[in-house]
């Protein structure tokens, strides 16, 4: 009689746990996020797309208007070797983000070697880039905002950079590839580099080092300049819930062809990056701070170009289902002198974003954020956006 009033527990019909095969040797998980937004740029009518290109991660994709489907898989070959892969489809573009082998040589030690298209060594946000780990919908500027610098085209003089201020979504320079294309962020959170990485933990210290083909700003599957990307990270966990990390990275960031067009060697164009990050969480709140400083050697222009991105973000759970979050973010650049003026070589950007989420199910969230962007250059200097996101994962 009581069973007669029953209904299925699993009525949602979609998996809520990772799919497990072969006695646990193979595990597949996934996440889906559907993001829509309505932007309002200064001087334009309400509810347009991201006409200021503040949230574009490349020429085609705005992080505020995106349908993303990600699948991650791991296969444990034996107790020492695993294969892992991460495929993401953003709108209609499929990208193999990661595909690598993880070797765990010592059963009783926390030490791994990873080879293939591997996760970032540098920084903290690069490992928070899944929608579930990002408390907001937008991304930190240092990891997403496109500066005008390109790997395949070079400015000859400061005026070339001044002309492109605030136009990183589609920039062009006189040397190298003359076709307009999108520039590079300080660190690209949307693609991974290829190479070898070692990682180990001793007590509450953690260290990682990698040797890969691209650069932090321009990760690659195949090398395009015969230079190598060296990166390292050290982190400490002195207290439960507290992580303090520092990272460094160094790599040539332009193609051999672009360097040759400037009558230089690709190794003369080096991106040197340093970063620091802190995360603290307790009870119902989580706070993260991260700063990324990047210097670009550019033989044709002096002094060298510098940029820094810094953000502070926090999340607080009001109830088991509801959380609120906020981020303050700034991207700044050093000043260089041209023939008639001195300016920052790119237009500084300040962004703040506030929002919240509601957990319909444990693995189904609705989120909304309000974002404000201000830029000291470019055609559109102020833009606000209201975004909504549906997020499902298993």
């Amino acid at each position: 009689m009581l069973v007669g009033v029953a209904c299925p527990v699993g009525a949602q019909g979609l998996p809520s746990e990772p799919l497990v095969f072969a006695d646990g040797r193979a595990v597949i998980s996934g996440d889906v996020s559907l993001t829509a937004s309505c932007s309002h740029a200064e001087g334009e009518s309400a509810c347009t797309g991201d006409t200021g290109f503040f949230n574009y991660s490349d020429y085609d994709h705005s992080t505020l208007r995106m349908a993303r489907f990600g699948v991650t898989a791991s296969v444990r070959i034996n107790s020492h070797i695993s294969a892992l892969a991460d495929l993401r489809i953003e709108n209609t573009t499929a990208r193999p983000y990661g595909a690598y082998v993880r070797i765990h040589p010592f059963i009783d030690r926390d030490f791994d070697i990873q080879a293939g298209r591997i996760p970032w060594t540098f920084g903290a946000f690069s490992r928070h880039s899944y929608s579930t780990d990002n408390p907001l919908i937008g991304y930190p500027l240092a990891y997403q905002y496109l500066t005008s610098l390109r790997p395949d085209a070079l400015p000859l003089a400061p005026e070339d950079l001044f002309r492109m201020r605030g136009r990183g979504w589609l920039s062009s320079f006189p040397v190298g590839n003359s076709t307009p294309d999108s520039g590079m962020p300080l660190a690209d959170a949307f693609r991974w580099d290829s190479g070898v990485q070692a990682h180990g933990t001793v007590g509450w210290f953690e260290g990682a080092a990698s040797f890969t083909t691209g650069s932090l700003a321009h990760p690659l599957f195949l090398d395009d300049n015969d230079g190598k990307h060296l990166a390292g990270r050290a982190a400490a966990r002195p207290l439960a819930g507290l992580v303090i990390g520092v990272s460094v990275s160094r790599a040539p960031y332009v193609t051999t062809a672009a360097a040759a067009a400037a009558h230089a060697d690709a190794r003369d164009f080096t991106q040197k990056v340093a970063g620091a990050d802190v995360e603290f969480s307790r009870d119902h709140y989580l706070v993260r701070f991260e700063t990324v400083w990047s210097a670009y050697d550019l033989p044709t222009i002096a002094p060298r170009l510098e940029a820094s991105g810094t953000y502070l973000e926090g999340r607080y759970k009001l109830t088991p289902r509801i959380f609120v979050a906020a981020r303050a973010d700034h991207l700044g650049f050093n000043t260089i002198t041209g023939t008639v003026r001195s300016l920052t070589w790119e237009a500084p950007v300040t962004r703040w974003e506030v929002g919240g989420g509601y957990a319909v199910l444990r693995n189904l969230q609705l989120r909304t954020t309000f974002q404000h962007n201000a830029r000291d250059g470019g055609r559109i200097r102020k833009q606000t956006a209201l975004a909504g996101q549906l997020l499902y994962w298993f």
Partner: protein
Amino acid sequence: MHKRFSFRRAFLAALGLAAVAVPAYGPVDAARNGAITGHVELTRPPVAVGRRPGVTDLGTPTLQPMAEPQMSVVYLEVAPRGAFEQTDTTRAVMDQRNETFVPHVLAITTGTTVEFPNSDRIYHNVFSLSKTRPFDLGRYAVGRSKSIRFDRPGVVRVFCDIHSHMSAFILVFSHPFFSVTDPAGRYRIDNVPPGTYTLVAWNEGVTSESRQVVVSDAGLTETDFSLR
């Protein structure tokens, strides 16, 4: 034939039918009370729970499969009259150890306070979105414990907000006539007043067809279940 069902509904229905339940239950009848015992066989594959692949992590040994939950719960669908008059408050423990809730299945009576100690070196964040008792204990470190009192009957699915592979069940009954099986699948419900009852077995959200059992004076009634 086996059916999946909503525990909250079933428990509430059980609570509602209690008013017409027979026979009476109370200390005065204790000498006549009997017991129900038996075995729950799980013929369906165990529910495999895996960690989400740590693809974005710097190397982490996250690929070991989790322990297979095998414990079942057998309970009276309709309890004897008077069974709900017990007001004793008790405490129970659900530990967090090696990124696992221990035990994976906890059966308690209403009014019980459950402690959730953290016995790991890392943070955990116990929470539940169950309508029976939604809660979020926040993040806390090793050596600390937080507790929640469960006052409504139903099923509470428990998770960790940090480690998505951690999950557990708390079954909250408004009467004491239930038993969690041992590792071999055996159960025993003691102190059942003589009478006819409906018995149900549960495992990981799947319930058996209900069974009619007759408990005689001070007798032992055996009933086995097979869950597919």
